[in-house]
């Protein structure tokens, strides 16, 4: 098959795949229905303070798998739903930020700076329109970068990296994630170490289950679902409960919004915000491609660059950034949305997740099987059909459809999602907790798995209490198995050379990079604390 045939096959896998139902005798593709449902769910979740896209992805994944089963046909509908949530949540996050000064997601914080002043001026609908346009433009730009770059990254890796280099690359990724997430490299490294210890329990090559303390319960190790849902969701819910205990407030105490003046977004205004969207899209896309940095930094950087530009070109009398400038909303929303597509470059090209949303994409493919993200996926085999490559193009088709949904219906859903802002946390949190445990039990019907989830939840809560990000833990848990396997393989393939990590310049470069990353982050942290 030629590359174009693969693209066509991917599109066909979505369009002519299993049908959800028939509309006037025409079958409606299941994957597209799932993408649509995912986007709507994502917008609603993003608009709800206290909830976030990865949370919804985590809860829905086990439920989707138990519904669709373990076969390759399930991959596109399940991934389509998850991608839909990922994209919808970024859009929805702007709603409470603009309307009520309460960001639905952490990266939407910068949106409040100009979005809320616009609302106070009676321009809330216009602000939402700007957020919608910017967010979807940034997202689409990022997806195009993904489609173009992922195959090249994969081909380069395939060509130049052997077992030792792949091991060194995984070490570099973990160091990078530890150093940049959460603001404290020391805590990041501890978080990574805890993740590795947890994933190494019960595994190994010997028959005796490693680190299991002779207990049957630990002999099989912790399943990835209990660890991730526990640390990410149960931990977050426990922390939210504690905050509620302290504040005893509800998140739905919202003031009445009154709009006045023209709410339309004129052509002149679109032209005015276009350069800010473009600039932020590039910034967000580049940041998204680096594992671990995430949307919050992208939003902050996009906003700062936008402000610098705005200061230079601001007409007389126009509001500055922070006073309700539509350019401010555009710069932030384009930046934080353009992270999502390029975040999948390391996932599809290297098999390495860069953020929580990407973790669930990897988790879905791992759980369902038949598709292993990584360099081998992009083998354009001519004589035998590489089904994984067809799936990748199917996934790209689903992403484009999600963008189309966002472009067309996204604005209307955003306005409808304002109702979610009033949902009280006291009602939401138990529902989230119940859904989480149900999701775990659906995947692994045993009481043990529920206890493990609770245990990891307490760990996640304690990590949050000491300001330690749980994300390095999660990514280390996901990558730990690959790290061990590739190290074992590198050791054997080099004839038992204990210095295999220093066997080539590329792997030495990666190792040096991992040390430098941590050292630089530590120095940066020290400088920051001295200045403070």
């Amino acid at each position, binding site marked *: 098959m030629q590359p174009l045939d693969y693209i066509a096959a991917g599109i066909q896998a979505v369009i002519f795949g299993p049908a959800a139902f028939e509309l006037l005798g025409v079958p409606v593709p299941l994957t597209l229905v799932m993408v649509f449902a995912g986007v709507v769910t994502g917008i609603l979740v993003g608009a709800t303070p206290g909830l976030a896209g990865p949370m919804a992805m985590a809860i829905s994944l086990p439920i989707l798998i138990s519904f669709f*089963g373990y076969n390759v046909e399930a991959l596109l509908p399940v991934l389509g739903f998850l991608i839909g949530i990922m994209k919808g949540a970024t859009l929805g996050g702007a709603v409470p930020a603009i309307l009520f000064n309460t960001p639905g997601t952490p990266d939407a914080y910068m949106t409040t700076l100009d979005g809320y002043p616009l609302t106070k001026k009676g321009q809330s609908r216009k602000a939402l329109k700007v957020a919608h346009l910017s967010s979807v433009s940034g997202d689409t730009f990022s997806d195009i970068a993904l489609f173009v770059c992922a195959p090249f990254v994969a081909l380069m890796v395939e060509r130049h990296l052997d077992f030792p280099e792949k091991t060194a690359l995984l070490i570099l990724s973990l160091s990078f994630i530890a150093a940049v997430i959460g603001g404290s490299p020391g805590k990041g490294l501890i978080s990574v170490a805890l993740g590795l210890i947890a994933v190494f329990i019960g595994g190994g090559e010997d*028959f005796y289950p490693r680190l299991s303390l002779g207990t049957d319960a630990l002999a099989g190790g912790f399943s990835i679902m209990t660890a991730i849902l526990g640390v990410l969701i149960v931990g977050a819910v426990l922390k939210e409960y504690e905050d509620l205990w302290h504040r005893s407030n509800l998140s739905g105490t919202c003031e009445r919004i009154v709009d006045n003046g023209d709410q339309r977004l004129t052509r002149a205004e679109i032209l005015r915000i276009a350069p800010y969207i473009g600039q932020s899209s590039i910034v967000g896309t580049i940041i998204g491609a680096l594992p671990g940095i995430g949307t919050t930094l992208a939003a902050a950087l996009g906003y700062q660059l936008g402000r610098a530009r705005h200061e230079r070109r601001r007409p007389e009398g126009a509001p500055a950034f922070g006073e309700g400038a539509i350019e401010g909303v555009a710069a932030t929303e384009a930046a934080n949305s353009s992270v999502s597509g390029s975040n999948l470059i390391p996932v599809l090209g290297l098999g390495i997740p860069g953020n929580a949303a990407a973790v669930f994409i990897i988790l879905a493919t791992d*759980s369902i099987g038949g598709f292993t993200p990584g360099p*081998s996926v992009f083998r354009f085999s001519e*004589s035998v059909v590489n089904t994984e490559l067809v799936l990748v193009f199917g996934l790209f088709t689903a992403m484009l459809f999600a963008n189309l949904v966002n472009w067309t219906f996204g604005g209307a859903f955003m306005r409808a999602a304002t109702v979610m802002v009033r949902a009280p946390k006291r009602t939401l949190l138990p529902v989230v907790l119940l859904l989480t445990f149900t999701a775990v039990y659906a995947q692994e019907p045993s009481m043990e798995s529920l206890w493990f989830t609770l245990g990891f939840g307490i760990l996640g809560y304690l990590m949050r209490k000491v300001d330690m990000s749980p994300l390095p833990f999660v990514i280390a848990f996901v990558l730990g198995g690959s790290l061990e396997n590739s190290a074992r393989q590198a050791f054997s393939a080099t004839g038992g050379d204990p210095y295999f990590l220093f066997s080539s310049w590329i792997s030495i470069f990666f190792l040096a990079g991992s040390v430098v990353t941590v050292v630089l982050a530590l120095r940066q942290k020290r400088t920051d604390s001295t200045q403070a």
Partner: protein
Amino acid sequence: MKKFLALGALALGYSIAATASLAEDWTPPGPITMHIAFPPGGGSDSQGRLIAEELETRYGWTITPQNTPGKAGLIMAKEMQGAPTDGTVFGLGISEALDYGMADGTAGMTPDDVTPIVTTTLAEVAFVVPASKGWKTFDDFVAAAMAGEPMRVGAITPKIADVTYLMGKEAGIEMNITMVQGGRGMLNALYAGDLDAGFVAGAHSRGVEAGELVELVSGMSRPLSLTPDAPLLADLGVPFNLDIYFMYFGPKDMDGAAQAKLAQSISEIVLDDTTKAGALLEANFGGAEAISGEALQAFIDASFVSAKDLMQAASE
């Protein structure tokens, strides 16, 4: 292949005749847990799930497939220790778990600690190299190994690693043997150029048909379907083979009627290529081979003894 199918059918016929009346009366006393000793998603997992689906359709039983992967099926065998013996717990693994996996004693189990039920197919195990290397025969491979760097060879199970080692030893070449994760992991490593060669258990067939991979040696005690001229291990001076069956087994002292009914019903499903499971076995493994009863027990006993000899030979 037909000869072996006939043998399988004969063995099946024998076992069915002996236990037909016993099997007729048996129905599971509750929902069944069917362990699958492979991670979700691959061909081996699909095989188990499709058989479970067909059993549910044909007999109305409730079956929950549960993936219990690890250590070539030993983890699953351990998991089933102490499980109910009434036929509500059994699993699909490979025969290697019962012979090589238990032969060195570290597992604390012997084949007598499980109840063999029925095989579903014999894995088409072949020593495979990428066509891009230009090696057409095992002699070409040996010549290249003697001329250059040690060959990097993958193995998907410990038994295969030992046989690979002995094959290299007989040929007088050095090989760095690397464990890889399943057939897909092996193929990825071969295509990426991370490995030079390795024994694969059926996952390579499409690559061979497409001219991307070349089979150099048959790992089985019989010739390969796609490359019948490739030498057998015995031809290379290796007195062992890699006859690895996919097979169902249950906990020790399983109810005889349950064992017979399960053997009979699973055999009927896998030998019928109009079922999804039968079609999958035909497409991925070259067809089903259902051996049960005494024939299966005899195979396991012989393999267990041979596995001990293999370990001894590989450690010398």
